[in-house]
C-alpha cells in the first residue's frame, strides 16, 4: 500500500486543439485553436483548421478536438489529485487504467476543513477494484498496491 495526501486541482476552460499525426499515428504537431475557430469547423463549407495543411486534414492525418485542461497541458488528474464539481468529486487514477478518474457523488463524501475529504463506507465499498484505491480518509488516499 501507499498513502498520498490529496491535492485539489481546478479545471480550466477547455482547450481546442488540432492534432497532426504522421502515418504511424504519432502526433508531430499540435495547434491550439480559438473556440470560434473550432466551432467554425462544424459549419457548412468549412475545411481545415487554421495552421493545418489541407492535404493533412483531408487525408485524415489531422483532426481536432475540444479537450479538458488543468494547466500546463495536463489533461487528466494524477493519482492523489481531486477536483470538486457542482455535484461530485473526481479523483485522479493511475495511468493505464480503464478510466483515468473516479467520480463520487457529493452525498457520499464528507468534507472537513480541518482534516479534508473522507468517503463514506458505502461509496468506498462500491469502488471498482481496478481503481487501485483502498480508502480516502481525512484527506489521505491509500492504494491497494505499493
Amino acid at each position, binding site marked *: 500500500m501507499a498513502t498520498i495526501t490529496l491535492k485539489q486541482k481546478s479545471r480550466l476552460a*477547455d482547450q481546442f*486543439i488540432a*492534432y497532426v499525426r504522421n502515418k504511424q*499515428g504519432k502526433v508531430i504537431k499540435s495547434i491550439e485553436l480559438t473556440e470560434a475557430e*473550432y466551432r467554425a*469547423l*462544424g*459549419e*457548412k*463549407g*468549412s*475545411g*481545415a483548421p487554421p495552421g493545418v495543411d489541407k492535404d493533412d*486534414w*483531408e487525408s*485524415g492525418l489531422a*483532426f*481536432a*478536438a*475540444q*479537450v*479538458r*485542461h488543468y494547466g500546463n497541458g495536463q*489533461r*487528466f488528474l494524477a493519482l492523489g489529485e481531486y477536483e470538486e464539481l457542482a455535484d461530485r468529486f473526481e479523483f485522479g487514477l493511475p495511468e*493505464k*487504467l*480503464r*478510466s*483515468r*478518474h473516479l*467520480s463520487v457523488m457529493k452525498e457520499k463524501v464528507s468534507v472537513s476543513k480541518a482534516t479534508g475529504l473522507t468517503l463514506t463506507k458505502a461509496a468506498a465499498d462500491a469502488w*471498482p477494484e481496478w481503481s487501485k484505491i483502498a480508502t480516502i480518509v481525512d484527506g489521505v488516499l491509500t492504494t491497494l498496491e505499493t
Partner: protein
Amino acid sequence: MALAIAGTPTKGYATAASSVTFAHTATGDGLFVGSGGYGDPARTTSSVTFNGDSLTELWDINDTYWGNFSNAGYLMCAPDTGSSYNVVVTMSGTMDMLMAGAVGISGLASPVGSAHGTIYTDQDSASVTVVDSEADNLVIDTFVTYQPSVTVGASQTSQNEYDSPEDSGHSFGISTEPASGANTVMSWNTADAPKCIGATALIAAAGGGETYNVTDWAGFRVGDSPALYMPTLTATQDGATIDLTWTMPDD
C-alpha cells in the same frame, strides 16, 4: 439497388475530449458515423453533424453495465458530396477517450426512418444478432472495449478501427456484413473485458424509379382487338441508347 461502401472511411479520436472533428468525403447517398469511448456514466452523444447538417441518432448507449462506456450510431441520407467536409461528434461531457469513424454507403433507402431495421445493442458482449436482417441488407455495427486491440469477426469487413490509441487501452471499430437473411451475427474477437456493441441492418433503396427518354417504339395490334401492344421501346438514359423489351404471352 445493392448496398455498398462508398468512398474511403475516415476517423478521428482524442483523449480527455468532449468533441472530436475530422474530415470525410462523401460519395454515396448515405453516411454512417459511429462513436465509442469511455467516460462518466452520464455521458451521452449530444450531436453528430456532417458539413453542418445533423445526422439522425440510431442508438446512443449510455452503458450502465460496466458503468462508463458510450457507443453510438448515427445515419444521414443524401450527405453533401463533391468535396471534403467535416464530421463533428459532440458528447455531453468530457470522455477519457473518444473515438469516431465515418463510413459512406451507396444504394441506401431514404429517408433515414426507412433506411434501417431494428436497433440491437448489448452492454456486455462482443457479439449481437441482428434478428430482422434480410437478404440484400447491409448490417453495420460499432464496438468499443477496454482491450489493447480488437479483431473483427470472420464474416465481417472492418471499415474503421482504433487499437488503443495513445496507449489508452481502449479500442473501437465499425464493421459491415452483407446479410444473406435473418439473424446476422456481428461479432468482434477480444479478450474478456468490458465491452459494448450496437448494430442494425441498413436497407437498400427500392429498384426502379429510373428515368428514360423514350425515342421510339414498335407496336402492333392483334386482330380486331382494341388493345395496342408495345413489345419494345427504344429509349435513352444518360445519353446511351437502351432497348427496353419485354416478353409477350403466347396467347
